[in-house]
Every structure is written in structure tokens, then in C-alpha cells.
């Protein structure tokens, strides 16, 4: 069944591709397209960061019975642009007796890792820059580079607070990556593939979180918890811990270097929500019911990137809600939670998922007629 999709960008992208192929040799066409994609991704990265900063400040305000930014522009909407200009024109302070090279290199590890993860996310139908066969593994691998930047930042700053913050962050991120990876693996068992586009395609009529019911739901919750912990946000922001460590690993950074950490933090929040959307909540796939062609057509009129950003926004709201509800964990409680609670549950859960898939207890196995598989 082919549905009309008037607002999709696939046609535009195909036209652009044909245009470049026609006027340039295949090599230069690829180069130009690659550069355009790079520019698009970096621009989207910056725009999403600005939007997220505004949204977070507004929602934070609402959770604290305040209005949030409301002076600059309608409802304070251009506040984060003003903040960006401020951070760009700020002086970069040079630290005496810091390890110069590593100090300046560290932010690029953090931002590079989040940019690389950002590039592999399917934003919509045909809106995925790279689609690896090992997409999920790639995301896990790339997002774990970020911790290197954090550790280098803390170590090269020659500052005890930064060092403590970096050590906490290192312990926390490396521990929680285990849980995040395991919960993604649970879904890989269910979907039978690591390629993100195929994972999205396989969720056409039923999302993975429903298809795998109990084990998938547990994996989803664990992924959200470990995702928040990995991005050093929510109740797990103790690497920053303003009260004890001034600002943790980025205490000594100023100006745009601090801005990189700030940007990467917000984008990591987005990336975690985006991965959870792609893997558990059907990605950019509109809600469809097999056989209801009229309903499906209406759903397809809403373009796929709107579906993607909508689902992601819900998860981001959840992350902010959690952040302003739960108190910050102590470092030993934090590590206990990972090693004594989440990891055993996760190991048990992945076995449960394997049993569910092998025994045919997934929804698609139990009710194949509903999903047009019979």
C-alpha cells in the first residue's frame, strides 16, 4: 500500500542528488553532497541545541512555579540566541600550569563524539546521513568517546575540583554505558538487526516496546535511566554538582570552550531521546494500523520528521520532569544502582527476551494477522 506523503523530503533529496550527478563527475558529486550533509548536520546540531536550551529553561521554570525566560522576544523565545552571542564574545581565559594541548583538545572529544552519534540518527524518511549495518553498535561505540574528553578536561585543568568531577563522571559514564548497551542489545535480539533503518522499518505496525512487551518495557526504562546517567543529567548530575565541585570537570573552561560542553550536554540529552525513540518507539514511522487504510493515510500526511521530533520531544520532557523531581544521588548509591540493581536486572532481562523471541511470545508471533504478517 502506497500512501501519499506530500511533505516528505525524499523527493527533494533525490532531485538534488540527480542534479549533482548530472553536472559533476561521480567523485565530485559525492564530495559536494558530503559537504552539504555535513553543513546540514552541524546546522541542525546548533539549532536543536538552541531550541533545547530555551525549552529546558522554560520547562524548568514551570516545574518551579516560575515563568522562565519571558522578556526577550515573544515568550522569551530568542533568549538562547542572546545567550549564544554572549558566550561567543566572552574571553577565553588561559590557565597557568594547565596541560595546554590536552586542555584545548578535550572539548573536541566531547563535541565530536556527540556529533558523530548525531549523524547516524534517522530523522525521517530518507533523512539519515549514514546507515551502518552495525548502527546500534556504532552509536554505543561513538557515544563512549565522550567520556575521554571529560576525563582529559578534568585532568588537564590542574584543579582538584575538576579532577574529582572528571573521576566521578568517568566512573559513572563507563558503568552506565554497560546498562545502556545491554538494553539496546535486548532490542537487537527482538528486532534481529542492528541497522537503524531496518529497526525502524520493522516497527511499521507495532513498536518494539509493545512487540516485546515486558522485557522490552524493562529495557526501555533501563535505557532511559542509564541514558540520563550517561549524559550527566537529571538526578545523576553529580560530576557537576554545583554545590560541592563548583562545576566539576568544566570549572576551568570559559567562553566558547565551555560552550562546547554546554552544547554537547544538551545534544546528548537529545541523542539519548532520539535513540530511545528510534529503537523502542518506532522512530519516524507514523502510527499505523494494518488494514485501516484511511487512518494510515491521515497519519502519513503528517511528515515523518514531525513524528520523529514529536516522540523525541516527549522523551526529552520526561527527562526534564525526572530531573526536577528526583534528588541528586550520592556517588556510592549511584554505582550501587548500576552494579547491583540495573546490571543484574538487565542480564536477566536479555535472557528473558531471548526466551520470548525463541518461544514466539512476541506480539507479532502471537497475533500475526493483526500486523499483516500471516
Amino acid at each position, binding site marked *: 500500500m502506497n500512501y501519499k506523503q506530500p511533505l516528505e523530503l525524499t523527493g527533494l533529496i533525490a532531485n538534488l542528488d540527480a542534479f549533482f550527478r548530472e553536472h559533476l563527475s561521480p567523485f565530485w558529486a559525492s564530495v559536494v553532497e558530503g559537504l552539504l550533509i555535513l553543513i546540514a548536520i552541524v546546522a541542525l546540531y546548533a539549532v536543536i541545541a538552541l531550541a533545547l536550551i530555551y525549552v529546558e529553561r522554560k*520547562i524548568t*521554570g*514551570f*516545574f*518551579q*512555579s*516560575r*515563568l522562565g525566560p*519571558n522578556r526577550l522576544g515573544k515568550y522569551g523565545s530568542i533568549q538562547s540566541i542572546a545567550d549564544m552571542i554572549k558566550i561567543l564574545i566572552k574571553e577565553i581565559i588561559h590557565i597557568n600550569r594547565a596541560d595546554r594541548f590536552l586542555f584545548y583538545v578535550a572539548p573536541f572529544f566531547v563535541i565530536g563524539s556527540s556529533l558523530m552519534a548525531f549523524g547516524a540518527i534517522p530523522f525521517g524518511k530518507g533523512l539519515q546521513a549514514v546507515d551502518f549495518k552495525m548502527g546500534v553498535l556504532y552509536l554505543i561505540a561513538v557515544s563512549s568517546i565522550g567520556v575521554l574528553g571529560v576525563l582529559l578536561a578534568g585532568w588537564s585543568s590542574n584543579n582538584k575540583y575538576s579532577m574529582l568531577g572528571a573521576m566521578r563522571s568517568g566512573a559513572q559514564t563507563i558503568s552506565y554505558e554497560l546498562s545502556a548497551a545491554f538494553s539496546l542489545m535486548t532490542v537487537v535480539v527482538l528486532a534481529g538487526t542492528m541497522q537503524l533503518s531496518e529497526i525502524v522499518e520493522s516497527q511499521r505496525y507495532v513498536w518494539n516496546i509493545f512487540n516485546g512487551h515486558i522485557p522490552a518495557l524493562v529495557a526501555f526504562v533501563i535505557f532511559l535511566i542509564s541514558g540520563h546517567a550517561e549524559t550527566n543529567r537529571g538526578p545523576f548530575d553529580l560530576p557537576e554538582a554545583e554545590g560541592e565541585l563548583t562545576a566539576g570537570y568544566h570549572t576551568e573552561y570559559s567562553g566558547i570552550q565551555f560552550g562546547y560542553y554546554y552544547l554537547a550536554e544538551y545534544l546528548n540529552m537529545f541523542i539519548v531521546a532520539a535513540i530511545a525513540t528510534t529503537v523502542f518507539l518506532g522512530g519516524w514511522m507514523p502510527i499505523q494500523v494494518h488494514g485501516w487504510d484511511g487512518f494510515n493515510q491521515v497519519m502519513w500526511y503528517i511528515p515523518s520528521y514531525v513524528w520523529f521530533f514529536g516522540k523525541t520531544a516527549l522523551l526529552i520532557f520526561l527527562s526534564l*520532569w*525526572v530531573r*526536577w*523531581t*528526583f534528588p541528586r544521588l550520592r556517588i556510592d548509591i549511584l554505582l550501587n544502582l548500576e552494579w547491583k*540493581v540495573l546490571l543484574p*536486572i538487565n542480564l536477566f532481562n536479555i535472557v528473558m527476551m531471548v526466551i520470548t523471541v525463541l518461544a514466539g511470545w512476541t506480539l507479532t508471533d502471537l497475533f500475526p494477522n493483526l500486523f499483516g504478517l500471516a
Partner: protein
Amino acid sequence: MKALIKYITDIFVAIKNLLKGMGVTWKQFWAKKVTMEYPENRDTLVISDRWRSELTMPHDENNEHACTACGICMMNCPNGTISVTSSTVETEDGKKKRVLDAYTWNQGSCTFCNLCVLTCPSKAIAFTNDFEGAVFNKEKLIYRLNQPGSKLREKKKTQ
């Protein structure tokens, strides 16, 4: 076995309590916001009567005030904020009498301690809660409280 059961029940208790907390913040999210948007809400803004921000000398409809220029407020002011200048004039019946020339108050160095108002024997000055006293220049903070041409209110002849 007991430890295992406790381990599992602890997880569910924790989830229940965390959800309870999220319920509280969810209600807070939709609650009425307490932020006051100041310049827009001037009409509805309520400033307490006890709030002291501007020293005034009330004048009645005949442009008369109650200040006898005794200078007690000036002496009591801890910061030297008030200065009272007076001159002596002779009334028709030959009595010498002190009249107020200028009552100046420097808001810039005032701590709003209220000692001047408390010690004024004739209740000639009062603090109001009109708080919008910002000016661009510190010279503008020096106010002359007695209106030009005003004079001392005569005591009513005793009945």
C-alpha cells in the same frame, strides 16, 4: 532467600515512591505561576504599607505643612541625610519665630531607618511606599520636601 525477596520488593517500593514524587511535580507543573511581571502588573501590584521608600512632608490644601524646623530629625538621622535650614522672622506681635526655608533629604544615603519620622514632635514627615525612585544621576536623589511658598500650619486657637 529473604534477602532476595527484600531486594525485589525494594525495587518495586522504589518505583512506587519515585512515581509518587513525579506526580507531585506534575501537579506543580500545571499550578499557577507565582512570578510577578513587574512593569506590566503596576495596576494590580500591592506594596505593603509598612514598606518605606520615600520621605514626604504632607501638605494640606492651603499649602501648609506641620514642620516647625526644630531640626530633631536632622540630629537623629544616623547618616546625615536630612538637612533643615531655617530663618528667624518677627511676627506682627513682636515675637521671634523660626520658619522653615528648605527641608532637603538625600535618598542616596538614606537607610530608611524611620528614626526621623518616629522622633518628629509635630508629625510633619512620613514615609510612603512609592518605591519607583530610580533616577539616572545621583544629584537627582536629593529632594526638597517642602513645597515652594508653603508655610507652617497655624495651631488652631484653643477653643
